[in-house]
């Protein structure tokens, strides 16, 4: 389903249908996912429809830029480093692209969403919540529901730390897709309560294609600066 399409097309995967068909001479984009439908008439001569996984912070409505993944607690020795694999939720973005511009047409996803508060109610942040197990190898995932995150953990403080969640700013997120959806991230523990997280702009496997990011399509300028987790992990 992920890829670029010109003119009419039809892709169906499970309960997801995405198509562009000519209705009475009008090119019509139509999406059906879990009983919900979305339709738009496209007026375009040279434009392409781009479908790819996007930052999972848009549904049911965009209220935050943050993603929090909670996982089984891990105790990390001072100075130790380890790479593990987590799952993260996938939302599918549909863009219309021409030579001069790209615009978001539709965002949808299978399954439900949940949000949480990271930090205190007065100074914390709202984040999209997802629960994952910790995998030593790349786990099997449904590419339309979940992605694989390679997380490189490093404890740079002088004490043992327990880590059970990681928070990212979605504007830093670099998603790649191929047989599955993937992102590569780092988490550097600075103190007992603070850690720095960031995404790495590199495919998990060679040959993966980089997704068009939502904030790029929305022309929102963003600086990749990572995120500082100040309220524990």
């Amino acid at each position, binding site marked *: 389903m992920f890829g670029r399409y010109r003119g009419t097309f039809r892709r169906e995967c499970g309960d997801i249908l995405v198509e562009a068909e000519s209705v009475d001479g009008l090119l019509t984009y139509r999406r059906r996912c879990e009983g919900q439908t979305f339709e738009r008439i496209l007026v375009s001569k040279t434009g392409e429809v781009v479908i790819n996984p996007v930052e999972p912070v848009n*549904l*049911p*409505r965009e*209220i*935050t830029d943050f993603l929090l993944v909670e996982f089984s607690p891990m105790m990390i020795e001072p100075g130790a480093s380890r790479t593990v694999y987590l799952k993260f939720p996938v939302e599918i973005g549909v863009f219309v692209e021409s030579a001069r511009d790209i615009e978001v047409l539709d965002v949808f996803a299978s399954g*439900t*969403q*949940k*949000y*949480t*508060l*990271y*930090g205190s*109610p*007065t*100074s*914390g*942040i*709202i984040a999209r*919540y997802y629960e994952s197990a910790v995998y030593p190898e790349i786990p099997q995932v449904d590419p339309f529901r979940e992605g694989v995150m390679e997380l490189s953990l490093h404890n740079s403080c002088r004490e043992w730390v327990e880590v059970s969640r990681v928070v990212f700013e979605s504007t830093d997120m670099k998603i790649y897709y191929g047989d599955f959806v993937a992102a590569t991230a780092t988490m550097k523990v600075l103190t007992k309560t603070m850690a720095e997280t960031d995404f790495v702009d590199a495919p998990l496997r060679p040959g993966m294609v980089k997704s068009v990011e939502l904030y790029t399509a*929305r*022309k*929102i*300028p963003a600086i990749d600066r990572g995120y500082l987790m100040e309220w524990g992990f």
Partner: protein
Amino acid sequence: MAFNVTEVLEIPIGVGDITVESLLYFAVILTVGVIIARIVAINVRRILAERLPVNERELLAKLVYYGIIVWAFVVALPQLEFDLSGLLVAGGVAGIVIGFASQSVVSNLISGLFLMFEHPIRIGDNINVADVAGSVEDIRVLSTVIKTYDGIYIRIPNEKVFTSNITNYVHNAARRFTYEIRIRHQDDANEAIRIAKEVIETHPFALKNPAPSVFVDNLGDYSVNLTAYIWAPARNWWEVRTDLLWKIKVALEENGIEVPFPQRTVWFADGLEVKGGSGEKNE
């Protein structure tokens, strides 16, 4: 008789040596200044539309707008032969007079500046101030404009906003709301709590953390009273609150747990004698 423009322009207007020409220059400079200020402010808003929060964007646009106008005024003043250094001398006395005359204006202005920099409220926030509840439409130099939930425009002087108790419902990231759920005494309260928690869990904006809390709060005359505390994002709490209660009621009823009607058990000392049984007719 020939009409000579130069002569007309050189006609004194009767105040010092000010001529029509210098008055025109003053007006033109000021008009150009206002036009430039508007164009620059519009462009500042447009360029920063998606880069800055609306509050900061409006503040910056207003600062630029009034800054250019003040600059144009200062540039235009010499056309009226106004000696700015003289203003410093005269300013002392005039300042006192103007100060008294415009006490409330200055007070509103200073309050407005404090509001802009202290940020107790921002444009778009849902607030309650001076007994007015609504969303902030604009924070101006002298006043704050609030649109009530009924869509009514209310302008409050900044001094009043600044000196009143301000309740900002969306200042924090999350807020809590409460439901009181009543079930019958014969219903299983633990089951009701489990069902209510399950329904709350399905709502995306009922926050995972802080976790919702549902518990038996007290035993009423005719009902067991459960209380549910639910946290939601501050900007979305109303939608969660209006959405969840009915879903909880439906889920409870589907599982045989009902909301009780008010009832009272009456005991008769001599027992209750039933008259007018089947076949018996009362006259």
